[in-house]
């Protein structure tokens, strides 16, 4: 996709409205290690926000807090105008925030269907579901096929295939499909291309665009600068446990972004967070 198209797509993002998901002044320490040191975060409805930062900058902790996997020591998270306190990933999911965690969070020995519905299985109607806790496997299989083909993952023909027999790209596809199938508002992707080759990364990129086209807001954490600059509407630069800049990919070069991220360059005055 050419640069102009991305500019066009981002026009639909309305930044005069308050952000859909935001965080203010998050703190988190693990013993002496400070993972978040007053981190702020803003995601607007309908945009793709990339989060970049050096290793150990605290990106994953911040994402964990937004996704309910990490409890911040202090600070405030606001989603859709209301302050939220997610105690578990489940609570964030119930609000429509889905996360693909780095390392995928799939159960290796279970099938694709089992994984798609892991933690939110459908039960049979009536007594079979309430008393005998029977799973509605037919319904789950039908919905799983639909989700996968909606996302263009139809080449995964056998949805009863065990996840550990899939390639890295296919597994990523399943993880992304799960997030996108259930994430009604926000999908957070932590290093979705980390383990993938060039070709497989392209597929994930197309998936992300496809999901955004459905009106879902996306947070993309990545070290893959070309991917970030190709996809993102805005880039959040994280350093030493906090946001130090917000830039538009069109206003800055890749090498400057990396320089800000590593502390080699001060952020431009209008971009400082």
């Amino acid at each position: 996709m050419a640069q102009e198209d991305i500019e066009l797509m981002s026009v639909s993002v309305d930044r005069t409205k308050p952000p859909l998901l935001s965080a203010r002044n998050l703190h988190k320490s693990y013993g002496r290690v400070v993972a978040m040191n007053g981190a702020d975060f803003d995601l607007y409805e309908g945009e793709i926000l990339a989060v970049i930062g050096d290793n150990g900058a605290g990106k994953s902790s911040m994402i964990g807090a937004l996704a309910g996997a990490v409890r911040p020591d202090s600070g405030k998270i606001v989603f859709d105008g209301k302050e939220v306190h997610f105690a578990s990933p489940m609570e964030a999911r119930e609000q429509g925030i889905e996360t693909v965690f780095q390392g995928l969070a799939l159960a290796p020995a279970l099938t694709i269907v089992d994984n798609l519905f892991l933690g939110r299985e459908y039960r049979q109607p009536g007594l079979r579901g309430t008393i005998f806790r029977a799973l509605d496997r037919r319904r789950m299989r039908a919905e799983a096929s639909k989700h996968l083909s909606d996302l263009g993952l139809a080449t995964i023909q056998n949805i009863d295939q065990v996840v550990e027999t899939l390639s890295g790209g296919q597994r990523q596809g399943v993880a992304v499909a799960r997030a996108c199938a259930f994430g009604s508002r926000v999908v957070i992707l932590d290093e979705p291309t980390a383990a993938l080759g060039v070709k497989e990364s392209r597929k994930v990129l197309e998936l992300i665009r496809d999901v955004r086209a459905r009106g879902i807001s996306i947070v993309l954490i990545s070290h893959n600068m070309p991917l970030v600059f190709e996809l993102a509407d805005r880039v959040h630069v994280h350093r030493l446990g906090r946001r130090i800049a917000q830039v538009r990919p069109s206003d800055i070069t890749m090498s400057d972004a990396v320089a800000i991220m590593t502390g080699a360059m001060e952020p431009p005055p209008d971009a400082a967070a």
Partner: protein
Amino acid sequence: MADEIEFPGAATGRSALSRRILNHLHANPTIIPLFVLVIGLIIFSFVVGERFFHPFNLSLVLQQVTIIGTVALAQTLIILTAGIDLSVGAIMILSSVAMGKLAVTLGYPPEIALLLGIGVGGLCGWFNGIFVTYIRLPPFIVTLGTWSVFSAMVQYFSNGETIAQRDIEAGAEFLQWSGEAMKFGAARVTTGSIMMLMLAGFLWYMLNRTAFGRHIYAVGGDQEAARLSGINTKRVLMSVYLIAGLICGFAGWLMIGRIGAVSPLGGEMTNLDSITAVVIGGTSLFGGRGSIIGTLIGALIVGFFRNGLALAGLDVLWQEFTVGLLIITAVSFDQWLRRISN
């Protein structure tokens, strides 16, 4: 998006056929143990002949594997969560001692004694679960410790004395009920064996047809991934140890039926025998992969091999030798499956 995305990378260096076979082995881990069982039965039918397939002999093997099979069912649940339980035998004996003491010495109705005895098993499992789940100690260490603790409790409560068969018959015959046999021609099938099979059926359903069962596999496969998927991993682990304890308590009842008395001895080999059945049945010691049916087959393999070798006139040492080889083969196969899938 209309155009189809294909994910490359799966087919590198492996033919479609071998990938399909591999996938089948992943999806149906019981194929291999079933194959071993069938081969074993064929070999013994040639070596031993008619005596081996005599209904009486077949039902005898079933009786012999009932207790180990039941404990192995409990062990399967634990091993599926990537744990191990060395205290299962001690829990079983402690439960049977509790049942015998309550019913015979203290005069409780045997039905109540049975429930309380199973409850003792559950309590032991719960105790293991607390240390594994909340204090996060390795299951091997926890259950190595509780093996000693529970064994000491057995000696304390029993004073090292056996409760004789006639004393149980006098007032608490119900405790021996699981040893009663139904006759099908020459075959004698005990109620204990039938209850073991029913329990296996129940556990199969739980593992394969309920969300809780799927969560056990997920927790065993990758605990952190399961947690991030929104599974309450602590509750799953606690439940598994509790259920395993209850099953071991139930096995204590079967034990009384089998030997007719309550003995503080025995059960030393139950720990390792149960692990043997689980491993030969194709369940991975690394967690997340395995099945109840595999464990039943594993227990039957051990039972039939021991029985067949004995009938063939071989010394007991060759039974041990063969079982040892089977364990190593089973674990090697599991390792190989894991390696090629990564």
